[in-house]
């Protein structure tokens, strides 16, 4: 493989990896607060992508076709609606089980995942849907690398959302309350923090990030399919674990790592090997660093 091809594969991997990172953010934030892998996240990602197609098409009918405002409006509306859906998921599938053994909410979140993708399939039929092309397809030449302007924007939009979320959690008062709730839920309640509301908020933010990922994916690759939530959800879960589950920057690092790895795998081997390679490397990384790349064993509660 030439250097040019190598760089090109890295660039492609970073673009798709940034989308995985956004989905992973939802897994990792919810896990950080309630120690639950919310498998519904893959379904929320898919629902977000389909809401995106719907609103894009709707706006096209009303003559709003300028790409940037259309993308922004679609993002805001779909993220809000998907966030609301995540709120319902928390109410229905998590809250009634919060004092149950951990396996119970895990299974109910898996049930939610299948429910969401089944609903998408029933409502839209099993046919793939096409995203309207938003930007001119003329490729950009960045030194030896060729990228579409869309994928460049996707990459930066995803990074911007992740960094924004990280700053929100680090700097704002609500973000501090989220970290306090994650560190010690009872003690957070003793500070006057309504931890039930913080849990809801975390699900909502995670769902909104998943929706953003779904739309960015659709805009970049042009089609969405009813089973995209399965692969996307599983790979992003891998990314979250690889980066260090519960760790917000870890979601980004894990996402980009998985993206680049799967991009390499598809260069050297037939496509069918893609997932096998990604998961083999996951096992390898976890064997060396069980806490993930950025995960840390914190000396808590001396």
């Amino acid at each position, binding site marked *: 493989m030439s250097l040019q091809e190598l760089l090109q594969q890295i660039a492609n991997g970073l673009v798709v990896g940034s989308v995985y990172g956004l989905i992973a953010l939802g897994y990792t934030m919810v896990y950080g607060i309630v120690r639950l892998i919310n498998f519904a996240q893959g379904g929320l990602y898919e629902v977000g992508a389909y809401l995106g197609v719907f609103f894009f098409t709707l706006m096209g009918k009303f003559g709003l076709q300028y790409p940037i405002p259309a993308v922004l409006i679609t993002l805001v509306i779909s993220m809000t609606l998907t966030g609301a859906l995540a709120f319902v998921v928390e109410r229905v599938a998590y809250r009634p089980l919060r004092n149950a053994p951990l396996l119970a909410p895990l299974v109910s979140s898996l049930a939610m995942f299948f429910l969401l993708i089944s609903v998408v399939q029933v409502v839209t039929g099993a046919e793939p849907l096409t995203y309207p092309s938003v930007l001119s397809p003329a490729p950009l030449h960045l030194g030896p690398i060729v990228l579409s302007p869309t994928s460049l924007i996707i990459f930066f939009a995803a990074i911007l959302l992740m960094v924004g979320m990280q700053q929100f959690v680090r700097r704002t008062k609500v973000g*501090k309350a989220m970290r306090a709730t994650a560190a010690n839920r*009872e003690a957070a309640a*003793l500070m006057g923090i309504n931890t039930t509301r913080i849990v809801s908020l975390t699900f909502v933010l995670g769902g909104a990030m998943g929706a953003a990922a779904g739309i960015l994916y659709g805009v970049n690759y042009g089609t969405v399919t009813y089973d995209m939530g399965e692969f996307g959800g599983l790979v992003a879960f891998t990314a979250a674990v690889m980066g260090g589950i519960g760790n917000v920057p870890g979601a980004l690092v894990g996402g980009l790592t998985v993206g680049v790895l799967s991009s390499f795998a598809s260069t050297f081997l037939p496509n069918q090997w893609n997932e096998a390679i990604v998961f083999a490397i996951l096992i390898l990384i976890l064997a060396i660093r069980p806490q993930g790349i950025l995960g840390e064993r914190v000396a*808590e509660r*001396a």
Partner: protein
Amino acid sequence: MSLLRVSDLRVRYGAIQAVRGISFQVEEGECVTILGANGAGKSSTLRAVAGLHRPSGGSVTFGSQVVTGEPAHRIARSGISLVPEGRQVFGTLTIRENLELGGYVQSASANGEALERVLGIFPAFRQRLGALAGTLSGGEQQMLALGRALMTRPRLLMMDEPSLGLAPIVANQIFGILTEIVGSGIAVLLVEQNVHRALQVASRGYVLELGEVVLEGTAASLLADDHVRLAYLGHGMGEAE
């Protein structure tokens, strides 16, 4: 009218009745201690008052408000602060963030004043505000938990086993600070395994056995009580300290 009135409080964990209908009061500015062996129901009582565990019966009145069964964050906002057993500081957050979270429900300016006052009580934290709470020693964590509770500007401070697992010299420091807090007019409800220390700082006490109050009185009368001396102070009449 008492600041805190607990009547016929019952707490149950599954099939286990941890507290079997106890009643007690804490007056404004007073330090009261609850004594008893492990499993007597002391911690369960504090947790029920703080709203961490819903009582199965009885009532808790704070000031003029009935707070029985309210969620913990509402009770905290009404002016009751619990320093829980085992400190429970936010280990992954800095000292500054831990203290600021104590002032979570207050305005930024009130929070700034409270932070200055708390740093006046615990000057050692001033230089180390950026240190992670999880890296502190047990005694430092206890002080941080106490400082964090004071940041909430409580009218009633409840402390669950503040000296547990601490070296005697550190425990002495904690009790010194506790005496100052009582002196400043904040009411304190104290659960403490070291009965002697507890009765030095408290003015009154209740003795719990198997979830029931078996004895109550002033600190002096409890210190002189034969049952207390034998069961909790580990010596009989006339024995030296």
